[in-house]
């Protein structure tokens, strides 16, 4: 009976979603960005900024992309395989792909050798100023050697000589770097330093994007570095037909797109630059935008007013790709930036102290600053972001971590918070730390931008949470401000007790997250730049980090069995969280008014594919809350 009922429900949902799809859809999309997020360069190889890549991913096709569930999807490549368990990867290109100019006039065929030209460009010190070079250098055989060769040659022969280097057969690049291309067969073969099961996800990222040698011939090396929308070549779903910096960009459906028959595109996508989301809301009301994210004041205004015209159109957005953590600092200085803050350093090195924070801090009010209707939608129990990696049977990797932790998301109750446990750990911590000479209350220094009133209000909420959940006799949160650079003014002089930071992945593997936290590893970004764990002296703390690092190293070595790899990473991550070496914090889940079915969009929690305006389902009228809920349910049932 239950089965029958669920079948009927699923059928109803599918039918209701089908009815949205058959309704009138938008042919021209009007979207927006705030002015601080204007595109800075049209050169896809020369950018590591999301604001650029969100546009550029529509203009040039990479080998692979993602679908609306985050799975890898073929794009310029029609097939890919690894003949040796992950050390060599062969991509075969589709036939009939072309490069065209902004007017859609065909300029050249897309060739396998374009991927070699693109990689040569990225690795050439004199051409690309090292942008995007780090990932290929870590993964592809000979890439670091070639980068160093071009760097040394720049010094000895000058930049102009190095700019003459190409990826042609017989070149230094072809001899050194692990990429082999066959234009006839349309194959690109990457040889890696070690077997990497997640390498195909790197093929969605711009470090492995193609570049036509004919375009460089036409523009020159400097000309391509400074390329604009007017002289670049396109191979993607859209070309740019109008651009005025800080005003708007118009993307128009490419007339010669190779995949026209298999994908749904808008006739035009207009990206309007607006001063703020408040102005964007005015534009949405005037029909000049097709979606808008709501600030908390507007959201409350609409939500609390049943007669508001948009009261029934509030839609909860999907989480962004950033997994926010409360990164604890283990070697902190006082406000002078030089004297060690022994009180904090001793306290945070104590596991019971950290656990009292972990179980005690009820961050619901903090989440409400982002999502005042369903604050618990923002809760995060893991370090790795949701939807980054999936097991062979399609299970999200973070579900393995949550199983290890014994936690699951409950949108009615903040499952991690346990005041009894928190009190127990607090008592133990006070006893142990008092003996170690720590004075209470311990001051936790938190830094925000002095220019942001929003950050100041949020910090006030956080201060209240610390006060209510932990007690003023135990920990006091002290909010301080920096002027313009968090890195320069706070992070480098080690003045903060913790940072709340979001990390988004570049490729689909937990190592992209956990690799940032390992002990005594120069490549581990958070260990070196934030937690300063390598300078900590507490033996128990170091032992916990070493235990975690050993587990990460062991998991990383498993390359032939993806399920075993993820199971091992889940154990490592659970170890990291159980020792409370970080405190998982939140996701960004906002509310919006929209004519777009968010569940039809490309949804990638890593890389740069999420803003592709392809295969979107839309409506000419804003979706209602019920319709959006049905879309979510249908998506979950897929």
């Amino acid at each position, binding site marked *: 009976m239950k089965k029958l009922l669920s079948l009927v429900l699923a059928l109803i949902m599918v039918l209701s979603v089908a009815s949205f799809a058959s309704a009138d859809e938008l042919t021209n999309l009007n979207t927006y960005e705030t*002015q601080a997020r204007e595109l*800075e360069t049209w050169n896809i190889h020369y950018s590591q900024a999301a604001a650029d890549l969100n546009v550029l991913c529509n203009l040039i096709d990479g080998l692979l992309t993602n679908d609306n569930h985050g799975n890898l999807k073929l794009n310029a490549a029609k097939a890919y395989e690894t003949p040796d368990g992950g050390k060599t990867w062969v991509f075969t290109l589709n036939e009939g792909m072309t490069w065209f100019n902004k007017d859609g006039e065909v300029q050249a065929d897309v060739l396998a050798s374009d991927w070699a030209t693109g990689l040569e460009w990225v690795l050439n010190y004199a051409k690309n100023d090292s942008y995007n070079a780090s990932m290929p250098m870590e993964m592809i055989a000979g890439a670091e050697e070639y980068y160093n060769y071009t760097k040394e040659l720049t010094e000895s022969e000058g930049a102009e000589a190095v700019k003459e280097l190409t990826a042609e057969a017989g070149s230094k690049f072809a001899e050194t770097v692990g990429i082999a291309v066959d234009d006839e067969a349309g194959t690109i073969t990457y040889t890696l330093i070690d077997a990497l099961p997640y390498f195909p996800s790197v093929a969605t990222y711009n470090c492995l994007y193609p570049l036509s040698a004919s375009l460089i011939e036409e*523009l*020159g090396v400097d000309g391509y570095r*400074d390329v*604009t929308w007017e002289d670049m070549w396109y191979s993607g779903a859209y070309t740019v037909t109008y651009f005025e*910096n800080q005003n708007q960009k*118009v993307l128009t459906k490419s007339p010669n797109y190779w995949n026209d028959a298999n994908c749904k595109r808008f006739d035009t996508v207009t990206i309007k630059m607006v001063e703020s989301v408040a*102005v964007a809301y005015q*534009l949405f009301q005037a029909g000049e935008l097709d979606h808008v994210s709501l600030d908390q004041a507007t959201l409350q205004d609409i939500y609390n007013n049943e007669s508001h015209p948009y009261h029934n159109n509030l839609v909860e957005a999907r989480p962004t790709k950033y997994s926010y953590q409360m990164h604890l600092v283990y070697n902190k200085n006082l406000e002078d930036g030089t004297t060690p803050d022994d009180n904090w350093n001793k306290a945070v090195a104590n596991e019971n102290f950290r656990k009292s924070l972990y179980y005690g801090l009820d961050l619901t009010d903090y989440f409400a600053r982002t999502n005042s209707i369903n604050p618990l939608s923002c809760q995060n129990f893991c370090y790795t972001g949701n939807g980054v990696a999936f097991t062979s049977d399609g299970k999200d990797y973070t579900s393995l971590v949550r199983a290890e932790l014994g936690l699951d998301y409950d949108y009615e109750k903040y499952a991690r918070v346990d005041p009894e446990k928190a009190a127990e750990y607090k008592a133990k911590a006070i006893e142990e730390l008092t003996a170690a000479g720590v004075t209470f209350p311990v001051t936790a220094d938190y830094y925000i931008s002095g220019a942001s009133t929003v950050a100041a209000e949020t910090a006030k909420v956080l201060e209240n949470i610390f006060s209510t959940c932990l007690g003023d006799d135990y920990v006091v949160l002290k909010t301080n401000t920096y002027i313009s650079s968090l890195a320069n003014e706070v992070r480098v002089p080690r003045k903060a007790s913790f940072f709340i930071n979001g990390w988004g992945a570049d490729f689909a593997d937990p190592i992209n997250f956990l690799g940032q936290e390992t002990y005594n590893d120069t490549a581990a970004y958070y260990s070196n730049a934030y937690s300063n764990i390598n300078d900590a002296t507490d033996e128990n703390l170091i032992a916990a980090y070493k235990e975690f690092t050993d587990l990460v190293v062991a998991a990383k070595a498993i390359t032939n069995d993806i399920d075993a790899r993820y199971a091992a990473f889940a154990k490592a991550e659970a170890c990291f969280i159980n020792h409370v070496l970080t405190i998982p914090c939140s996701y960004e889940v906002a509310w919006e008014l929209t004519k777009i079915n968010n569940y039809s969009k490309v949804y990638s929690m890593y890389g740069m594919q999420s803003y592709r305006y392809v295969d979107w389902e839309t409506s000419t009228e804003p979706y209602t809350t019920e319709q959006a809920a049905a879309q979510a349910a249908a998506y979950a049932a897929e």
Partner: protein
Amino acid sequence: MVKYILKRLFQSLITVLLVVSIVFMLLRMMPSDYFFTEEELIKFTDSQKYAKLERLGLMEICQTCHGKGALEDGSGCPDCKLSVQDALGTGYVGRNVFSQLFDFYKDMLEMRVYNAKGKEVKSIDPVNFFTYLSQKSSGIDPFNGKLKEGYTAKATFNLGKSIRLEKNQYVTDVIATKMTASMRISIISLILSLILGVVLGVLQARYKDGVFDHIGTGYTVIVNAVPHLVIYTVIMIAGSALFGLPMRYDATANKPYLTMVLPVVCLSIGSTAGYMLWTRRYMVDELNKDYIRLAKLKGLDDRRVMFRHVLKNAFVPLAQYLPYSILLTVGGSLLVETFFSVPGMGPELTKAISRYDLNLVQGIVLLYATLGILGVFLGDLLMTMIDPRIKLTGKEGVR
């Protein structure tokens, strides 16, 4: 007079050079981390960071170790080691700021080479403008035979390229595009507010202490007292709801001039009040003078007195600021342009400073310094033209 003009121009040039040089050096005193985004700080390796600083002209490869950070015996390079604790050097050393400044001025005189299609040709090294002229006049080919048929060389006043806001685009090109957009709305607004402000100011003076004068004063007080952002929001919402006017500037719209209405209105609100205020004040001053009383006693009609005598004299102090206001249209308006997404100069300097776009900051500072000095200078000249009694040279009445 010619001597005076030449002297003022020379003084202006020195002032501009001083301003630009001071700003140039101040910008280079900032810690290097400011030249990276938070994203770049996270993702860049040390080598990537140094490579970027080298390209910005802030650092250069260390000549002692040739960028390796170590000497031949394997010990750390003493010249590029950051501290004695470091085993190796970074391979890079900071560039002398005066040599950077010299290069900045040298690059301004660079000739750029364009092919027949008007595209900049990169493979030919550009030459210095003076070298180009001297070699050309001596019959020597400055480009050593590389300048193919159809290619041209132009002096383009190179201020470098933007490093953040419009990465790798010439600062002069960025400024030219932005200036055009700003001037498009600012000039209309200037003409509108000048006409409205002066006419309404004259009427206020004519009917001093009357209802119209009180309404005008009320308007001036309100415009100056209420925060401009509030006024703009009201205008935006009212303009859209009542008249169906577009809320943001859009050059691609079917009727692009309609999208300029709200920004122009917002821009004119404040300056109209300003012109009203000063016209009224100067005219009331003039109205109380003896020659006006005499003119009235002699039976001249009011209109003739107001426009022929009072306005003419009252306009002299206003005229001094007119060239400055016209030149200022190039600079646009920070608030209005940000609010209505006008892609103009207004927000550019603030954005360039907040993102540490060195070359763009220098370019805009150079432009604003030049415009400011030129505006005052032209204002002085215009005053002497309108009122011949004012002398810029000589012993009496010298300004």
